[in-house]
Structure formats: structure tokens, C-alpha cells
């Protein structure tokens, strides 16, 4: 069957088997391999993409079901050579290690910040609770999302983001360690 959808702002039309999963459509038919596959059972969330702005596990959606909808993948985060603040934040706050869950985590975080520009730690944890990271222990992901929220708030406040964000990122990532904890 034929399916047409918008992926990262570009309309695509492909012939697919009715049973084809969206994750395979994205990875193999469109060769957008930043979306990963991890469990088959909707538990791990490394396959998360945004469908009409909402995080969806693409291993549990048929490509055909995405017809007519707007899909955004990790490849769509960077716009005109400018990183999304969430991408910058994950690097700054060590929100990733092996990188496998990272695209899904960033997309869910993007959707969260779009809906709630100033999320609390609890709200961030709940937002990413359908996704598993085996490397980071989540604290640095939470910090990344908070950092991105702060950067975006500053940008909205009209501060010169380009000039000032670098200064704000200077503190050591291990800065929360108790003062004097270095013996």
C-alpha cells in the first residue's frame, strides 16, 4: 500500500507492506538511522519519534497509521545548521553515554519543553519514564533538560543567547558534588 507523511518537514510517499512498522519505515525506507530499535514491546523507548509533536514509540505504530501525519525524528532537531538547545544541553550536561537512547530522550524532552517551558525535576522524570537509559542513571538527563529550559528562558528574555550562553556553561559538570568532597 502507498503511504504519505511529512518527515522532518519533507513530504514522503512510499510503497509499504501494511504490517510495516514505523520504526523500520523510518530507519530502512528513509534511511534515517538516528531513530533506534530496542525491545519490540514498547518498553524501552529508543524508537521514540514525535508524531504531530507528541512522543510516540515507533516500534508500536504501523507506518500506514502515520499516513497524513507529521513525524519528527532526531535528524529534524537541528535547524539550518543550528543545534536545538536540547542537543546542546545533552552534550553540556553529559546526558548521554553510548548514545543509543539519546535520540528518543531528546525528542521527548523537546516535546516536554514545548508544552512546559519550566519543568520541575519530577515533571522531567515523569516525562521520560517510558524510556530506558542503561548508561546515565538519568540524573544527567534531568540536568540536561533543566539546562535547556534555562537557556531557552534566557533566549526568550531577550538576552543575547549567542554571546552569553558560553559563559553560563562554564561550571564543572561535577559542580553539585559537595563542597570539600575532594579530599
Amino acid at each position, binding site marked *: 500500500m502507498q503511504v504519505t507523511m511529512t518527515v522532518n518537514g519533507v513530504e514522503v510517499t512510499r510503497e509499504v507492506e501494511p504490517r510495516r512498522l514505523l520504526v523500520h519505515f523510518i*530507519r530502512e525506507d528513509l534511511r534515517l*538511522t538516528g531513530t533506534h530499535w530496542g525491545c*519490540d514491546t514498547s518498553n524501552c523507548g529508543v524508537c521514540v519519534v514525535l508524531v504531530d509533536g507528541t512522543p510516540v514509540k515507533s516500534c508500536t505504530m504501523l507506518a500506514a497509521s502515520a499516513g497524513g501525519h507529521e513525524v519528527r525524528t532526531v535528524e529534524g532537531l537541528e535547524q539550518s545548521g543550528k543545534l536545538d538547545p536540547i542537543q546542546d544541553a545533552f552534550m553540556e550536561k553529559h546526558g548521554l553515554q553510548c548514545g543509543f537512547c539519546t535520540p528518543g530522550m531528546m525528542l521527548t524532552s523537546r516535546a516536554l519543553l514545548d508544552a512546559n517551558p519550566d519543568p520541575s525535576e519530577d515533571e522531567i522524570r515523569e516525562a521520560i*519514564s517510558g524510556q530506558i537509559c542503561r548508561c546515565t*542513571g*538519568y540524573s544527567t538527563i534531568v540536568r540536561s533538560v533543566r539546562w535547556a529550559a534555562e537557556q531557552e528562558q534566557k533566549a526568550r528574555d531577550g538576552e543575547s543567547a549567542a554571546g552569553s550562553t558560553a559563559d553560563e556553561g562554564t561550571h*564543572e559538570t561535577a559542580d553539585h558534588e559537595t563542597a570539600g568532597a575532594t*579530599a
Partner: protein
Amino acid sequence: MTTTADRPLRVPHKATDEPEGVGSPGERPIGYGSLRRKEDPRFIRGKGRYLDDMLLPGMLHGAVLRSTVAHARLVSIDTTAALAHPKVKAVITGKDLEPLNLAWAPTLSNDVQSVLVTDKVRFQGQEVAFVIAEDAYSARDALELIDVEYDVLPPVINAKKALDPGAPIIRDDLEGRTDNHIFDWESGDKEATEKVFAEADVVVTREVLYPRVHPAPMETCGAIADYEPVDGKLTIYTTTQAPHAHRTVYALVSGIPEHKIRIVSPDIGGGFGNKVGIYPGYVCAVVGSIVTGHPVKWMEDRSENLMSTSFARDYHMHGEIAATRDGKILGLRTDTLADHGAFNGTAQPTKYPAGFFHIFTGSYDLQAAYCKVTGVYTNKAPGGVAYACSFRVTEAAYLVERMVDALAIELDMDPAELRLRNLLKPEQFPYTSKTGWEYDSGEYEKTLRLAMEMAGYDDLRREQAEKRERGELMGIGLSFFTETVGAGPRKHMDILGLGMADGAELRVHPTGKAVVRLSVQTQGQGHETTFAQIVAEELGIPPEDIEVVHGDTDQTPYGLGTYGSRSTPVSGAAVAVVTRKVRDKARLIAGAMLEAPPEDLEWEKGRWFVKGDPDKSKTIAEIAMAAHGTVALPEGVEANLEAMTTYDPPNLTYPYGAYICVVDIDGGTGQVKVRRFVAVDDCGTRINPMIIEGQVHGGLTDGVGMALMEIIDFDEEGNCLGGSFMDYLIPTAMEVPAWETGHTVTPSPHHPIGAKGIGESATVGSPAAVVNAIIDALRPLGVDDIDMPCTPSRVWHTMADAIARSSAKSGAGTAGGDGEDASAPKQAGASGSAQSGSAQQAGIQTGEGGGADPDDAG
């Protein structure tokens, strides 16, 4: 200590803060410490290149048919219908592999493992047939068309029954095999330990189970085999933590000459030990490529990963600890049963069939210790060393830290106080343990006291006392672990005869930019950053001018790979040594350039200068250009600026740490909430604190996962009950707290830069802290023991059983009654005992007829 303790490896700025493009490399400041990672820009753009992202021209797809039963004789396999599928190219069975001598392959523990079954299946999920098709969907479809007939046999599931007379013999493929025994192994002094135990005031015993768990990296395992018949070259792209060791094993197994095999390990989505072994699917992909003349990709699914690839632990430990009444620990003893599954496939140094389990004396000064381990076969998946276990230091640390807490309960002593009385003292290092380990360095008390200070230990105990008054269940658990990593000295350690050394090669190009090539392979640990930082520190050029190459046997020097936290201790040392070699060579060349004797030159990061005349100097970039140019070189000095080395560690390294966990338990449901977790680690010299902290966070999450929810269990028929992420539960962001980390720095005296390694410390150290906290929380109910995973159901039943026991003891009508009676929890609420009074206050609802028994929700 002269090497690194006083050297500022950490500077108060990050590379991202530095002005871009200002100054020459010799002049601009060099950023060390918490640099942003060099690998991140590709990952955050979705441009990582993992195995399943790779697409080779003409590539076919493989899928494995797996056994549905745990133990059965194979009667027949009918592949006719599968072969008739229009998109199927080939179906391979054990019969096809037998003439190639590939139906069985050696394991990493000198056993053999079935590649595709020929005689009988020995665990559920074992490889039975391999289908190759034009696409992955068709390959899966064809699996359904294969008809297999089994003659089902009784399985051996309970390891404790594996050696029973009359137990079914699992490995009848091995000649003369009459039982399921694999090995007996011992360490320490049995008689001396018996004497210490006989004379001790106090002896405490526990049955400590470390259940079977699974590393479950987010990316599963796989391989693409590409055999090129014209030049006879086999390239295997694969998810491996040890590319060079894999190449050697493939050569030995397949008969293809080693120089004609290339292993490429691309970006890896987590390993944790799961990607050390060679799995049957890889071998099938190789055979498939040779048979079809096309590249063949095999990528396992999640259930295959959980059911058939390297599990971890499965140690049934009988522990005994001996002490004086005033809390001096005298001795430790264990008799342990190790469940190795159907094939002995553990990946550990040959001499040590139980890995480094005999470091079970931990961080304490004992008079004697003795450890005995018996390995057995069962009808379960093979493996055993995986999941960040440091060759079974995980089991050892868990055992000793549980035993110390058991002793604290017996002595009615604060567990922190008991540890402080028994920790090794700084002046005892280097310390030779009662089982033969030579600990390199440590200041244990300082680390524990820092953790207690960060946690506010005394305040926590006060809070706990108040909560107990109100009947609330709050627990504080400690763990102090000593790791042994960086395997290992070649004279002691090998895997399949391959000594555990690692190579490094450094080339400084004419413009002063460098490439360092490593034998180890990152799975997320940040090697591209950390190793560049070591070169930068030693050579004085910025990390961004250094490219780290790894994961390709055609491009890197030989070495045994990344596992057991060995990359920084072994490969990091190799990198420091090779960089110093280059620096020494640069001195000779600088001497020629400056017309000064090399011994008159002094080193300052990035340049050699003439003593007393610092303006007369040559930077590494200037020296590199000269080395590649036409400058007359001193006698015996070769052109260019590069070096190679292989590092054979003189000893292992001994990172350690003090962990404190605080839990709150819901008395009504048994749900454990990890409220706080304080981790103070000492991994010697620190290179990138941001990366170190990340490694610790990940390990702590593993620890909480294993303590609370992770288990690969089986039913009586051998059906795997942990075969998907719906059953094998892994912590999400909701189950773990915001980690609180700290550190002390006690460099390793024998490591070139003093680094000890950190990758697995938190996985090793944290489970005991969580379980000790849970037991501590349940003490008012009379609980003094519980096994992992502490699911709500298990915690609830443990509480109910304890209440029943205490009611049976104190209740008038139940004196002398059976406290284990299943009906006992019902009586608890009616009991007037002080303990069940606490239970009532804690809101424990033992219910009518067990109706309050909650599900094992994670």
C-alpha cells in the same frame, strides 16, 4: 608519591569555554578535566553509526530459530517449506555445520558450545537453525515455516539439584561425563580459617543469593559478515567489546587465516560485558556469507538477547563471618554454588574459574579466609561473567557487605561503626589479602567518613529513630567495596591463552596533530575523549588535536579489549607510556634543533626548552615538523614522530568506595523507595570528572535495578521468565533518586598516571547498600535477611512472615506453633506483640486471605 597526586589534571574550565582559534597549540591553554565529549556531536545528531544502521550492497538478513524447550533430544528438522519461501536464500542447520567442523565452537572457558543443535537442545532459546533471506521480515516469516520435532527430557533448573544422584546429565556430548559438575575451586587457607572460626566469640551465617541477571544493553548484539571470495578476506562488522580477541577466535574456529580477517566494531549501544563473547548467530552469519556470496546481517531481537546471550551472576553463596564480641572481624568463609548454564561460557582469566570472586574479604583486615566455589551445568543459557561485574568482584563485594551487616545485627552495633573498626588502614598498603591479592593503595576511613558526612549519617539515624517511633519504615544501608580491575599481569592472566596486555600507537603528524590507536573499544565510556586527554596531558597538545582510533583490527594494535574496567588501567597506561616515548624522542630531536645536549633540556607541557634559558625552546608541533622534514637527526634517531607500545600491567588496580543508601518502605504494599544515595568513589587519578561521574551514576542505577527488580528466572520446565522488557524490569527515571556523588583521590602507585579505573565500581558496590538499607528498614519487624530482587511482593511477604513468626512466638495460643505457616500473616494484625504493633503502625495490611498481596510491579 611523585607521579600524579600533585599534578593538576583538573583545571577550572572546559574546552567549550576556550576562545576559538586563538594562538598556536603551544601557547593556547589546554583544557583538561570535565571536557565535553568528542563523540557527542555525532550522537546528538542521530549520526552515530551502530551495527544495525549499516547497509552493505547486496546484504542479506539472517534470523535464528530457537528452541522452545529447555532440554530435549532433537528428532528432526524439516526446512522444506522455509526453503520454498520466495525470498529465502538458504537455511542452515547443525547438520550443515558438522562437515565444516562448525556445529560446535570453543567457549572462552575451554568448554565447547553448540552453534546450531545437532544432538539435543540444552536451554530454552538455544540456536536450532539459521534462515537467510532478502529482508529481515521474510527471514522471520520463514522461521515459522520450519518444523522441529523434539523428544522432551526432564531439565535441571535448580542449581542445588544439579549434582543430585540421578539428575539428568546435560552434557552427554562430553565424553565420559556422568554428572553436571564443572569445577571445584578454592582459595585461602582452609585450616587457618577453621581455627579462627572455632575460637571466635561470634559466628554469623547467611545464605546469600545473587540471582541471575542480564546486562541488557539498549542495543542488542549482532554481526554483519562479509566474505570476499576473490582475496579470501572476511570482514565482520560486529558489536564487540574485544575486536582483536574476536579475530583470533574466529581464525581458530573457522580456519580462515587471521591476517585475512578484519573485525570492525562500530559505535556500540552499551555493552556491560554482554558483548564480550562470540555468539552462535555471528558464526552463522559468517557461514551464511560464505555460502551465499553476499554480506549477511544478523541482529538479535530483545528476547533473544535476554534469553540466550551472556547472563550474569547466579551465585548461591553460603557465607560465614567470625568476630569477637566487641566487633573485630576475624575471618570469612564461603561455600558457593555457581550456576553456569548449559555450556561453560564465562569470559574470565583461565586460572580463575570463579573469576576474582576470592577478593571476597573486601576492605577488611582479617586473620583468615577461605573460599570454595563449585560450578555446575543447568538447562539455562550460558555465560556468567557480564553486567559490569569485574570478573565476579560484584558477587564478592555483595557477599562480604551483606555478611558485615549481618554481623552488625548480631552484635547490635551500628554498621558504620563496625566497618570503621575493621577497615584496612593506610599504613597497611600495599596489602596482601588472605586470598593473595595485593591491594595497591587506599585510605578507606577517609572515604567512608566523607560519605557519612555527605549523607548526614548521624542525622539520618536520628530521623530513623523518630520514624520508628511512629512505625514508619526507613532504612539506612552501607556498603564499602574494594574492586580489583585492570586485568591483568600476563604472567597470571590470559583468556584462551591470550595474555591480557593492550597496545597503543601514537603518531604525531608534521603539523603537530596526533592520532592515537587503541586495542580497546568504547561502548559509551567516552574513550575518544578520555584517551585524548591522557595524550594531551602527557604531550602538551590540546585534546581536540588528538584523534582516537579504535574498534578496527586493521587499524589498531593488538590487545584484549574493554571489559572488567580494564581500559583506563591497562590501555590508559599504554597511552601514557607511548606518549612518553614520543616525548622522549622529541627531546632528542629538539636537542638537535637547538644544538643543545638532550640532557640539558627541560620539559614544560608542550615544549622542550634549554635549562636556564626558557626562550630557547621547541614546541611539539615544531619538533614534529622537523622530525618529518630534513633536519639532521641525531645518531640512531629515526625520522618522524611516532611510537608504539604494549602495556603489561605489573599488578591490578584497586578502586574502592563508600556508599550509603536511604530507603523508605510502604508497609502496605512492600514498595521500596530509594530516597537518597550517596556514593564516594576513589578511582585514583581522575581524568575527566564528568565522565567518571556518569560512569558512577550508571552503575548505581544497575545496583538499584538488581536490588529491586531485575531477575532472569525460570519455571520448573525451564521456561525463561525474564525474556522481554515486560518481564525483565530495568529502572526508569522514576525508580532512582538524584545521585549524590563525591570522591577521594588515592593514586595507584604502579600505574603511569595513577589511574585505577571506574567503569564498574558502582555496579559492584551499590546492590549491598540497597539491600542492607531494606533490611535496616525492616529490623523493627524482626527481619534480618532478604534476597534480591526486593520486589514489592517479596518485601511484603518478608514482612508478613516476620510478623507471623513474632506472633507465633509471643501469641498465647500459638506458642510453639509453626511460624512458617502460610496462614500466619492473617493472625498478625490481631497479635499484641510489640513487633506486630510496629507493623500495624507501619500500615502493613496483611489482609484477609492474602488479598493485599500486591503484584510485582516495578
